[in-house]
């Protein structure tokens, strides 16, 4: 077995700088026999919510201006600032205090459907923007704040498969990515360590990979019930990779205490969110983070190059920030919206839109599945809600199934009685004389198998600017157009049938079918896709705009196809890779 240090840092770049900022070392054996060095986060006594960045000159020209402080923006900020770039990030939301998350509030269940709803159209906070979903089968969900949607995600962190990058070559559908799984692998590994991944090697459905920094999250008695059913059917399953601590890891971050509500923000700080992981590093290294500020336009000069942004500050005052480069990290809806808002005489259809593809090819991942009601009280409110086990038995294309590509099963737990009453598998408990009997049958007895299906790009699924709806600043809101394709419908139907088999094998006595969830548009993908051909893509393989050489996109917009897994590790790996490109190949952007 070979032990060596620096496998992630073959040259001076972002990762080298990330390492330099850290303070301790652990050697990790890898599954491939190559071993690598991981250095966990340095300690500070500062809560992220206390951080301020007030000692910067707002009139300077920064090297790089990032729009959005979520999963990808944070990774880019940390990488670039640790490589001595002068970085400013503008975020429309605010810092969150984990001790004020609603999970410790007696009213947590009420907040989950109002001020802490995952759906910005229900939450309706001033920092949110509305979306017009009249013509969409899926409602987009997101969180606006430092950390972005990692504040409210479940932190289920599988990777794309190598085949996901080659769907045109392999299945003659959609397009190949201009990068491969191997191109992203070192960045996946780095991100696993910075965010903190719990998991275990040896999954036969995925390529070998380096050892995770923490052992898996135990799957619990209910997880063992479902896993046993997969075993008896001879089908694949594996403990989910999760950016949730199974042990103490990172600054001030405890192990998960199995509270069961990881979507309400993690009071325990066991769930990774970038306000806890990348942002302390970025700010330590000098990144300026401006919160409560809504970017309304990317500005350009007479040649069409980006010069910075115009934004409304927390008081609503119109301001400008100058930068040598702009990085968009505002998610697959926010980024195309802002590009479309940044039209000009030179770019009448929006910035970086010579291809006409900005906002097109929106992908969400179709989500549906089956829930089983069990007679033996698995008490499924204990433990992470949806990162327990997964199955990728049906991930790859099999033409006999009647659809292209495939899906991942993701086991889900139930929650308290209020959530059960509001709906299992999208089915609200009936009111009236039947109510109590049905509630009692489902409560403490319901487990689900959700299907995340590969969502292939279609140009008519899109983000455009709404002609009437505006946000609280008066800026046009995004209009979402999205319909479920025949391929997706066939895929979901297959998943529901197979999921039913698993649940019945596990002992379920009642099956509830969820044909397709509406409020599951977490994964905002494809609306500024990457590619080698400027006529068929918006950015190149490094995330650099084909049209504007100092404009980069690092969020889910750049996905060429959706794959069939939760996308955040891939988004962050892409962001780290783009940062490395800027550091090593775009020295012209540094003062």
């Amino acid at each position, binding site marked *: 077995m070979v032990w060596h240090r620096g496998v992630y840092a073959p040259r001076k770049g972002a990762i080298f700088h990330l390492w330099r900022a850290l303070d301790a070392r652990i050697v990790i054996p890898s599954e491939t026999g190559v071993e690598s060095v991981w250095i966990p986060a340095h300690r500070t006594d500062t809560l992220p919510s206390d951080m301020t960045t007030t000692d910067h000159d707002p009139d300077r020209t920064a090297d790089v201006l990032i729009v959005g402080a979520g999963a990808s923006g944070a990774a880019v900020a940390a990488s670039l600032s640790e490589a001595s770039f002068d970085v400013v990030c503008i975020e429309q939301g605010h810092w969150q205090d984990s001790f004020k998350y609603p999970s410790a509030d007696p009213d947590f269940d009420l907040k989950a459907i*109002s001020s802490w709803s995952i759906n910005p159209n229900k939450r309706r906070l001033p920092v949110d923007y509305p979306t017009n979903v009249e013509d969409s089968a899926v409602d987009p969900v997101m969180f606006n704040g430092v950390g972005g949607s990692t504040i409210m995600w479940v932190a289920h962190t599988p990777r794309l498969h190598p085949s996901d990058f080659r769907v045109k070559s392999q299945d003659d559908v959609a397009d190949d990515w201009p990068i491969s799984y191997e191109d992203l692998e070192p960045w996946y590994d780095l991100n696993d360590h910075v965010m903190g991944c719990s998991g275990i090697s040896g999954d036969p459905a995925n390529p070998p990979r380096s050892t995770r920094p923490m052992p898996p999250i135990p799957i619990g008695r209910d997880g063992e019930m479902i896993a046993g059913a997969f075993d008896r059917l001879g089908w694949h399953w594996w403990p989910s990779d999760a950016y949730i601590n199974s042990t103490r890891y990172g600054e001030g971050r405890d192990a998960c205490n199995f509270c069961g509500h990881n979507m309400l923000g993690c009071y325990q700080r066991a769930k990774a969110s970038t306000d806890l992981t990348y942002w302390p590093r970025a700010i330590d290294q000098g990144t300026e983070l401006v919160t409560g500020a809504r970017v309304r336009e990317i500005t350009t000069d007479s040649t069409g190059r980006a010069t910075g942004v115009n934004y409304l500050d927390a008081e609503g005052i119109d301001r400008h920030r100058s930068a040598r480069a702009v990085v968009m990290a505002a998610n697959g809806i926010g980024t195309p919206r802002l590009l479309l808002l940044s039209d000009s005489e030179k770019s009448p259809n929006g910035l970086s839109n010579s291809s006409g593809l900005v906002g097109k090819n929106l992908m969400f991942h179709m989500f549906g599945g089956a829930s089983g009601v069990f007679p033996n009280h698995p008490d499924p409110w204990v433990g992470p809600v949806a990162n327990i086990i997964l199955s990728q038995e049906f991930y790859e294309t099999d033409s006999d199934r009647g659809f292209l590509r495939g899906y991942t099963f993701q086991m889900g737990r139930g929650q308290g009685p209020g959530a059960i009453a509001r709906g299992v598998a999208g089915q609200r408990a009936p009111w009236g004389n039947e109510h*109590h009997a049905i509630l009692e049958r489902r409560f*403490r007895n319901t487990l689900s198998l959700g299907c995340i299906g590969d969502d292939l790009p279609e140009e008519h699924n899109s983000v455009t600017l709404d002609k009437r709806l505006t946000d609280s600043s008066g800026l046009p809101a995004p209009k979402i157009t999205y319909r479920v394709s025949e391929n997706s419908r066939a895929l979901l139907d297959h998943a529901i049938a197979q999921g039913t088999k698993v649940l019945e094998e596990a002992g379920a006595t009642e099956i509830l079918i969820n044909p397709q969830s509406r409020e599951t548009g977490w994964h905002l993908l494809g609306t500024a896709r990457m590619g080698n051909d400027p006529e068929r893509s918006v950015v190149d393989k490094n995330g650099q705009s084909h049209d504007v050489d100092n404009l980069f996109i690092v969020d889910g917009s750049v996905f060429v196809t959706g794959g069939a897994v939760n996308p955040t590790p891939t988004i962050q790996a892409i962001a780290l890779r783009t940062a490395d490109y800027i550091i090593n190949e775009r020295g012209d952007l540094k003062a």
Partner: protein
Amino acid sequence: MVIKPDADLLSAALDRVVPPVGDLPGAGGMGLSEEVIKRCSADDRFNGALNTVLEALPSPNDFMALDDGGRDGALRAVESSHPAAFGLWLDIVYTIYYMQPDVHARLNWHGRSPQPDGNEMPPWDESILSVIRQREPFWRKV
């Protein structure tokens, strides 16, 4: 703004939506109508749903004059004519009902907030992988 007569109407409706069970009265009998009104007043979306449902029901006197079957019929009519508002109203009613300590006791559920106490993490048992570890890699090569 919901006025007092509507609170009485709401209470009667709540008793049909979540009727008595065991030794617990229905949601109306538990006095939850004031709680529902208060919570809805803090959220325009919920308040709109509440007012839509109450306005679509028969007048308070007419509703009170109905027997249980008649009240259920009136509620079903509103559910049919205003499905979105009725569903949202049910969500808030259910949520508030299942926040009540007496209801938790009947369900034998701890009812506390998820944090800070949480639950105990069970140990990781690698033997559960014994079957799947025998499977050969099957991911698709490119």
